[in-house]
């Protein structure tokens, strides 16, 4: 059943549940963070409309920095601004940042220990028609391997807003992943969000399996949990918006109760969120882990829904995985 402490939306399973892309949370979150701290600045690489950076620019024109189509410069100008006291959010598509500027992020932000918030937009195959070049599926892996890097993958636009506000006052470098396509806003203002904490969305005392998910697919996990409950199969759903540092306590506690885990992410299964869960349980409490995600493939053009079906990333696929 729905976990009451998660304070999920009242109309959680209604057709008219509000839908917004998580990138909207970047727009509103940076404005909120900018009102709290005058040192917050937003840098963007010629994508201010689609990244929602222009929402910040409208509010704080003097604190918005247009970098042009230059992602290496995006990361390194951000590093320089952080070094003299600014709090830079650097925004582009994840395929280009951290895709293209990985070394600059590694050396001048991570190793250099600068508080820069790298914001990767249009992650995952749900980007849709743009195709594989723009559908970043390796960013969680790239970022979580960097020492000291915090990695956030919000589940909806509201949680993305909270993640952005929290990242502004967090110590050290942060990566936040955002999506292009509108997805259900399943959380509410009351839903807890804290960097480093997972949130139990659906629970049963003796679940047949634990579904652990990150990003917008947590909503698909909820749909799967509901469908399974209707046929008498009980599961638990742990939403994990902080991939690093992982909430090992919550992961292991649920692993012990369930004895079996399915991980769900819109990312390569190698090196991403599912790998992080598998690493954690194999070391501390080995249980079988089945990782759902993109299986060593690139994306392609299509409608977002069509693509999510094709790559096996829907509630139906999660239900099948639980049954098997």
């Amino acid at each position: 059943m729905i976990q009451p402490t998660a304070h999920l939306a009242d109309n959680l399973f209604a057709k008219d549940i509000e839908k917004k892309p998580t990138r909207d949370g970047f727009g509103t979150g940076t404005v909120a963070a900018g009102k709290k701290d005058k040192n917050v600045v937003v840098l963007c690489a010629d994508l201010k409309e689609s990244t929602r950076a222009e929402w910040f620019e409208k509010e704080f024109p003097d604190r918005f920095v247009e970098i042009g189509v230059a992602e290496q410069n995006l990361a390194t100008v951000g590093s320089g601004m952080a070094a003299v006291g600014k709090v830079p959010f650097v925004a582009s598509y994840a395929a280009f940042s951290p895709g293209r500027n990985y070394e600059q992020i590694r050396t001048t932000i991570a190793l250099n220990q600068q508080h820069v918030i790298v914001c990767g937009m249009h992650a995952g195959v749900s980007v849709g028609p743009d195709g594989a070049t723009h559908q970043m599926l390796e960013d969680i892996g790239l970022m979580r391997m960097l020492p000291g890097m915090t990695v956030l993958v919000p589940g909806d636009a509201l949680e993305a807003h909270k993640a952005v506000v929290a990242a502004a006052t967090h110590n050290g470098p942060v990566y936040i992943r955002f999506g292009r396509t509108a997805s259900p806003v399943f959380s509410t203002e009351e839903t807890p969000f804290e960097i480093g904490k997972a949130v139990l969305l659906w629970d049963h005392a003796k679940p047949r399996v634990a579904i652990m998910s990150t990003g917008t697919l947590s909503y698909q996990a909820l749909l799967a949990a509901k469908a399974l409950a209707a046929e008498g199969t009980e599961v638990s759903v742990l939403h994990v918006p902080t991939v690093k540092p992982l909430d090992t306590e919550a992961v292991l506690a649920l692993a012990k109760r369930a004895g079996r885990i399915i991980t769900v992410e819109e990312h390569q299964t190698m090196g991403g969120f599912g790998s992080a869960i598998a690493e954690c349980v194999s070391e501390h409490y080995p249980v079988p882990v089945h990782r759902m995600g993109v299986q060593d493939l690139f994306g392609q053009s299509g409608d977002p829904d069509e693509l999510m079906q094709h790559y096996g990333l829907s509630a139906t696929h999660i239900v099948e995985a639980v049954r098997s």
Partner: protein
Amino acid sequence: MSRTDTELALLDTKAAAIRETILDMLVAAGSGHTAGPLGMADIFAAFYFDVLVHDPKNPEWEERDRLLLSNGHIVPVQYATMAHSGYFPVEECLTLRKFGSRLQGHPERDRLPGLETTSGPLGSGLSQASGMAYAFRMDGKKNRVYCLMSDGEQQEGNIWEAVMFAGKNRLSNLTAVMDRNNIQIDGMTEDVMPLESLAAKYEAFNWHVLEVNGHNISEFIDAVETAKAVYEKPTLIIAHTIPGKGVPEIEFDYKWHGKPPSKEEAKRFIQQLRSGAGRVPNEYA
């Protein structure tokens, strides 16, 4: 304002001491770069003993100028100069590249107070310096930002992204200094991947460009002072230097880019340094 002969003579003495320390530390380390650090000793002496607004006893002082070394591999010259100017004991230079040392093979900001960034991978210092200069101007602060780069580094795409950004934003509080020594690991820059005409390229991106003899400290200081008076543009000082400067045996030899001298070689090199036998650089100025 021009410096007096006495002031300039003192800077020459500092540069000579820095060169000896560089050779000592490279021998102790057993690896590292020789030619670049020796070639930049005069400019580092000019910065730390004259140009820079800084306080070696208070490296976090907010009003300080920022000096970024983009080509981190020549960091022995920065360590030696910092030690001689009082950031840490000169003896600590002998820990270069050793386990547990604050003096990493390539500079790391969080390990050694006084370093402004972490560098080694080429091409990203000018962007960071531009970000700093941009942020200082946003806040109406007067700190100046200096970025030292190599010539081979100009082959990096990231450099030109920064050149465009600083030119567009007219970052007149930013001065870049390019060590134009014509060598890189695989040979002469113009053979490996031609860079000229560097001055015309930077000017085309709205930079003010000055060219100096990088071993004429007086001329270099004058150029830095000129840059302060240039409004609406960042300035690039192309400093023509001789790799391995001060040790005639290795001057101009690209094979000395990335290796240290042996103990015997260093002994001989220091004798050559002390004899003042370095070639007259004016042919390159």
